[in-house]
């Protein structure tokens, strides 16, 4: 079966998730859809599996255009998707889950379904007890169940969204063996959605790379890891010579910090941030940089190690305590965390301006807001609701809200989704703050942004950290290797 996507576009509000993407998938091959978080790969696969419909563009199966009304429809056409979080019913048994979603009468034929399940599991070497409850299974076993279910529905194209997150090494190699045999022996098409480069290199034959909603390139594997990184992050412009910056005293001292969240653990980070320094945090999405920056902001308590600001121990301090000490945090999701949908610019100001009086001086709030709007070049009025501003203006406004004279400014993707001028403007503002002695720590998915502005770079991979402080090392090859998991030494 040959599947082709032709000129697929999809927008959500003003976000162009997919723009004019055309890809082609042949039978018997394993493809990777690569891209950073927000590159549009999930949207594209949801369109392909019938979960969403495209705004424009067509899906062709063996040359025939098809439209899917639902995932069931797509499965009937032979396209099935395995979601990142298994879509099963934990309080049911394996067999019941297997039956659910299968076409059949009101009374399902349990015995036949059991036979199918057992024989399929045997064929692929999965050990699944039909009578076990699903909540007793590991994520890997639940994936196996889901794969068997899709195979029993005669799926010919299998899409897997980040299948290796949260499964053990043995399960991963078992999964990969099955996927390889499905492609080689049964002529199925396998599509792996991932940003884990080592998985892609191990499993796939070809890789399609998306960036910012657009298709940017195709590689036949094997290929150097740096090539894939370059496609995913964009080509790094040569680092411009900058006047040597003079740094002040150390402001934040992070000593041997270990963090753990439900996703991963970050090991032994030590870093001394000096006044006026810019530190870029690079790495594939979910490698630990978000956890790290949140622990600096007081939102995630380290399991070990200390975080100090000057002489203040902030390791276990609350977010508000850390903020009082002069550390500000600007999260990535502007309207989810940071700004308040439905409130005006002036109300945001009134909310954040320090003041002892129990009442709000609306006159002054109006004046300050109007002033800041001018200074920060925000296109909006003091009484505009924040959500009516464009992304760039929201981000400028978020910067305008920050108190002056910060010691450390922590930013997550400060220019994500912004156009070039807006991004440049944001950095102008940030560099002004840096000149007045504020240290800046930022996460970005754009390697060129990191290289262009950072004095030092901290590269995260799977919770491990490498510090790059030599400008000579700040090039695609070296950083690409580190991001892709080739550790130093």
């Amino acid at each position: 079966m040959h599947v082709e996507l032709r000129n697929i576009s999809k927008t959500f509000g003003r976000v162009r998730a997919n723009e004019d993407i055309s890809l082609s998938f042949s039978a018997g091959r394993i493809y990777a859809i690569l891209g950073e978080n927000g590159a549009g790969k999930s949207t594209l696969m949801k369109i392909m599996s019938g979960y969403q419909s495209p705004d424009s563009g067509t899906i062709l199966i063996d040359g025939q255009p098809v439209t899917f009304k639902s995932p069931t429809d797509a499965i009937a056409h032979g396209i099935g998707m395995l979601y990142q979080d298994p879509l099963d019913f934990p309080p049911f048994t394996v067999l019941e889950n297997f039956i659910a979603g299968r076409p059949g009468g009101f009374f399902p034929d349990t015995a036949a379904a059991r036979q199918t399940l057992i024989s399929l599991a045997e064929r692929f070497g999965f050990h699944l007890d039909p009578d076990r409850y699903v909540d007793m299974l590991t994520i890997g076993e639940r994936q196996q169940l889901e794969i068997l279910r899709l195979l029993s529905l005669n799926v010919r194209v299998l899409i897997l969204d980040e299948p290796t997150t949260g499964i053990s090494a043995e399960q991963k190699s078992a999964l990969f063996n099955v996927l390889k045999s499905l492609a080689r022996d049964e002529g199925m098409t396998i599509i792996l959605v991932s940003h884990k480069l080592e998985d892609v290199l191990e499993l796939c034959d070809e890789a399609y790379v998306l960036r910012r909603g657009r298709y940017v390139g195709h590689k036949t594997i094997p290929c150097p890891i740096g090539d894939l990184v370059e496609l995913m992050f964009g080509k790094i412009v040569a680092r411009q010579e900058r006047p040597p910056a003079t740094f002040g005293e150390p402001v934040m001292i992070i000593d041997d910090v270990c963090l753990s969240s439900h996703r991963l653990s970050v090991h032994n980070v030590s870093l001394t941030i000096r006044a006026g320094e810019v530190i870029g945090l690079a790495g594939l999405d979910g490698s630990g940089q978000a956890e790290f920056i949140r622990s600096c902001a007081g939102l995630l308590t380290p399991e070990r190690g200390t975080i100090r600001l000057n002489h203040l121990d902030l390791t276990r301090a609350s977010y508000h305590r850390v903020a009082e000490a002069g550390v500000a945090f600007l999260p990535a999701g502007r309207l989810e965390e940071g700004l308040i949908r439905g409130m005006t610019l002036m109300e945001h100001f009134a909310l954040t301006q320090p003041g002892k009086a129990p009442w709000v001086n609306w006159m002054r709030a109006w004046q300050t807001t109007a002033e800041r709007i001018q200074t920060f070049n925000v296109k909006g009025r003091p009484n505009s609701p924040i959500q009516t501003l464009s992304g760039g203006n929201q981000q400028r406004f978020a910067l305008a809200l920050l108190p002056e004279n910060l010691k450390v400014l922590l930013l997550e993707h400060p220019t994500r989704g912004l156009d070039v001028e807006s991004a440049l403007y944001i950095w102008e503002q940030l560099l002004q703050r840096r000149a007045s002695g504020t240290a800046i720590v930022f996460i970005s998915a754009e390697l060129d942004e990191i290289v262009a502005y950072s004095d030092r770079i901290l590269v995260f991979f799977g919770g491990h950290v490498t510090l790059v402080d030599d400008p000579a090392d700040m090039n695609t090859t070296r950083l690409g290797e580190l991001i892709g998991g080739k550790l130093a030494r």
Partner: protein
Amino acid sequence: MTSIPEERTYPPRPPAMVRPSRSLLWRWVVDLIPTLITPFIGIAAALGLVVLILEWQGADPRLAWQFLYDGTLATAAERADLMSYWMPLAITAFGLVLTYNAGLWNIGVEGQIIAGAIGATWAARLFAEGEGWRAQITPLGHGWVLLLCFVFAAGAGGLWALLVALLKTRGGVNEIFGGVALNFIIQTFNMYLVSNGGPWQPVGSRATETAAFPEAARLSSYGGFRHLSLTPIYITTAAFILLVLIMYVSRWGLQLRAMGKNLRSAFLLGVHTERNVLMAMMLCGMMAGLAGSFRVLGPYVTRAKLTANPSGGIGFLAILVVLLAAMSALLTPFVSFAFAMLSKGGQKIESGFQWSDPPINLDRSLVRVLQSGIVLMVVLAFGVRNRYFPPRSAQAAVDEDEEVART
């Protein structure tokens, strides 16, 4: 396949849309019109529903309207009665305006009214009747007893609400579930106090209520009307002024609104969200507690007692009021007045048709159908409007070019 595009390429911007420029005021007025019309569409739909039910029962809707008027506004006595029903409903709704704006769905308000009623009764027994540990001490004077009744009522309601808030912030129990559970508990406790030989049931009595409070623990009546007293009116007015100050002037009110719109962002912008949850809930509980005290302190002897159902469901009614008033502090007095009228007039509609010729048996719950129907229809009308005719503020971000044009 296509080649790799150059670094940082962006699609060409669409040409700027040319729009007739209209003044900001005009836009604002245009936005306002549907907002003003929408609730009336909802109310009309709910009234239509009730008229249909009345016609189906063979009752004349015009007659029902006449009874409604007779039972609420026609005579001074009815107006006084309406006032005494309105005050506890209004003050409860004022408290709910605080929590609902903060995104706290305080369903437990019904239980907080009952807690307040119990608190007031306890104070009346202690200080006016000389029960319990005050048995040997001379009962206090009228003013002191009433003051203590209010303090106990507000305290009990506030603590009962604080419990819901602590369950939420410390125990991870959603305030809706915590509130429902605590409602049941306090209702059961109230029944225990006044029924089956409970500690507050007079010896030998079989009625599920306490004895009537002595004169010292009753509100003083005003103008010779049995059920009208000025004190609840003063307290409710003060609560309203406080509410307006909080919601429109204070920093705290702004913080509460921010929390209701986006708790996470409010926290990140420096709002002490946990403390504010506790404080808002407690203040709401205190107002509900005062409402409970208004319900049990008379002034006439038949109402100066703790009964099996001291709140009479005004907590749930207040929830409807605040929803219909769209959580606006300024609208709440009017909406609560309308609902008080419907509730009180509903009794007259029922009895009126019973004695009409031929008698028609209408259930009192018809009024509740109307009240809930209005809320449902108005919320539905707004839902329909926001879905199909979104106001500008609810729309997604506008284009930058248009923004420039507007500035």
